[in-house]
């Protein structure tokens, strides 16, 4: 803290102002808190490296510690969703933008976000193979079962039947959007990629409570 020069502080404030205007979900104070949190997570670094941002490992750490996520694959996908420019680092801007959806997104924004998480190859469709991959570990395997994958395959079929409205064997964004609007529990059907209410509350309380410290 004693290293925080006046210039640094000013920088942060300016950044906060810019970002909060762009992102609209957080006000200036809240944006400031998030930036400080971001800086804290990166650790004691020089100006140059701060410019890069959070790497995958540190980001997954946050997801795990603060939001209780445990699934490796999903956490990876979340990182990808945050890291929009695909440079393997989450910059401060990507951090704020991502959190705005994560913590306070509208249903529309959340649908888009989840779809991006689930679309493993980024081709705009969630295919059967991708679904299989995500659901692989969700059923308990019986030791006597002949084909342990059969249960998952059935599950995938049921899903496709329920959500594939244009009947092309895969879920387009429109399919996903329509299905979630009909039944909002389907939003995180393929994996928990959003925090639950308790975690959000705890995070906000912790992050926003003392704006001048971190």
């Amino acid at each position, binding site marked *: 803290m004693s290293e925080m020069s006046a210039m640094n502080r000013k920088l942060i404030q300016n950044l906060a102002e810019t970002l909060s205007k762009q992102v609209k979900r957080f006000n200036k104070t809240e944006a400031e808190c998030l930036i400080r949190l971001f800086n804290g997570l990166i650790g004691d670094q020089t100006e140059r490296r701060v410019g890069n941002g959070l790497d995958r490992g540190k980001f997954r750490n946050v997801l795990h510690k603060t939001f209780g996520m445990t699934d490796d694959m999903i956490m990876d996908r979340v990182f990808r969703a945050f890291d929009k420019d695909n440079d393997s680092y989450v910059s401060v801007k990507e951090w704020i933008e991502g959190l705005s959806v994560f913590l306070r997104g509208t249903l529309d924004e959340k649908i888009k976000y989840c779809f991006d998480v689930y679309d493993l190859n980024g081709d705009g469709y969630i295919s059967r193979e991708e679904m299989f991959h995500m*659901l692989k570990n*969700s*059923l308990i395997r019986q030791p006597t079962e002949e084909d342990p994958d059969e249960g998952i395959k059935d*599950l995938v079929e*049921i*899903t496709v*039947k*329920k959500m594939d409205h244009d009947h092309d064997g895969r879920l387009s964004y429109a399919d996903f959007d329509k299905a979630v609007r009909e*039944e909002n*529990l*389907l939003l*995180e*059907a*393929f*994996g*928990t990629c959003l925090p*639950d*209410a308790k975690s959000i509350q705890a995070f906000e309380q912790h992050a926003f409570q003392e704006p001048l410290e971190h």
Partner: protein
Amino acid sequence: MRDFNLAQETCQLAIRDVGGLEVLINLLATDEIKCKIGSLKILKKISQNSQIRRAIADLGGLQTMVCILDSPDKELKCLSAETIANVAKFRRARRTVRQHGGIKRLVCLLDCVPDSAALTVEQERDVEVARCGALALWSCSKSTRNKEAIRRAGGIPLLARLLKSPHENMLIPVVGTLQECASEKSYRVAIQTEGMVEDLVKNLSCDNQELQMHCASAIFKCAEDKRTRDLVRHYAGLQPLVSLLGKSENKQLLAATTGAIWKCSISMENVAMFKEYKALEILVGLLTNQPEEVLVNVVGALGECAQQPANRTTIYKSGGIPPLVNLLTGTNQALLVNVTRAVGACATEPENMAIIDRLDGVRLLWSLLKNPNPDVQASAAWAICPCIENAKDAGEMVRSFVGGLELIVNLLKSNNGEVLASVCAAIANIAKDEENLAVITDHGVVPMLAKLTNTTDDKLRRHLAEAIARCCMWGSNRVAFGEAGAVAPLVRYLRSKDPSVHQATAQALFQLSKGPNNCITMHENGVVKLLIEMMGSTDEVLQEASAGCVANIRRLALANEKARYS
């Protein structure tokens, strides 16, 4: 867990497998909100099946659902309350809900502001929570202990507030609950004092027949109390009730409406207004081709209206007498009580009596004396009195009922006070005809009446004294009454506070005093002082009878003295 989520959603489309209930209920016990929501969405739908309800209750689902009501998540609260509403449709479930603190929590859900013009999204959610709470309470309120529990949890003011809502889907469960609970006096009082009558009346004019029915039902139950009857009139509720009589295809609505009209008719001012709105004619029209639950109320209403002479004429002119007499042949006890009352009231008009007689109505009334239900017996006996008073050749008519006199005298053996009073009143009328008096004397009416004299019930005392007075006028009945010990108790009647008792007793004593032994008994019992007070009364009949009695006593004393000195 997320997968169970997915599977549940698709299960909704699949055939409901009852074996899935254990799983669903297990999910309710998890900490995952989404699991609970998913599970409840399904349970809510399938709990409409009565077997599944029992199964859910057996598996302890209700306890879990009650705990979920504590959750801060509003969607969860709504779903849980709605599911409880479905499951609590049988008695054991309702008890379980109460035993686990469910009533208290459901009442808490009702706390919201329902009627501000522009609601925020949060407030709208609160209103939805309240609506679901009301649905659950409605199901639960069928148990008496739950009604009490709702009241103790402070539910009544909250229900009163929700009653002001403009939304029908909120009003229906709220009024449904209120009308269910209105069987308890504490609720009826609260409905009056919390200003709910106004809202109930207002909603009588809405478009929704189910809501109208519940409002009418609530009014039906509450109008037992005079204050409610006045309030209904004050808030112009009588006209909408009469209009609702037009919706005669909806039998439940019709039953509720006629019920409300019946109870409101207990107040004369309301009857006057009903007359203006031509309700009587409509009611007479409803005397045929209606289910029993409607008829009971229609006849009840007519019976109350017929307490006014002008209305009796209206009933006659609308052709109401024949259907009423026809209903005397039914078997529904409640209906019979009301019909006899109505017919009795109408029979006080000679033109009505002529029709009743022609249609054999008196014989039908008489045979109702054989009905095992004492309320029916009493009501029939009361109705017989004006019939005898107003029929042509009443004595002849009574004699024509084979075994009729014996039947009615035997009713003096009943244990029911109302039956006894009504039969005495009837006997007092029968005994006006000398031949019939002879017959009932033969049937042992004197000792039976004498046996009844040891009573403190003023109604019975009055009619008993009237009967004794009349029966004295045959043969040696006077003496027989004295020997049967009827005289001394009668003297005590003069200490009653009821002036009609005084009048009847004085007349009886006057008749009895024509027998010397009775005079002695009376004098020994201190009757003179009491009668002298009565002589100062403004009631002429009382004055005359008292004076006559004292005179007889005095004459006997004088004759005694004369005999001694001669």
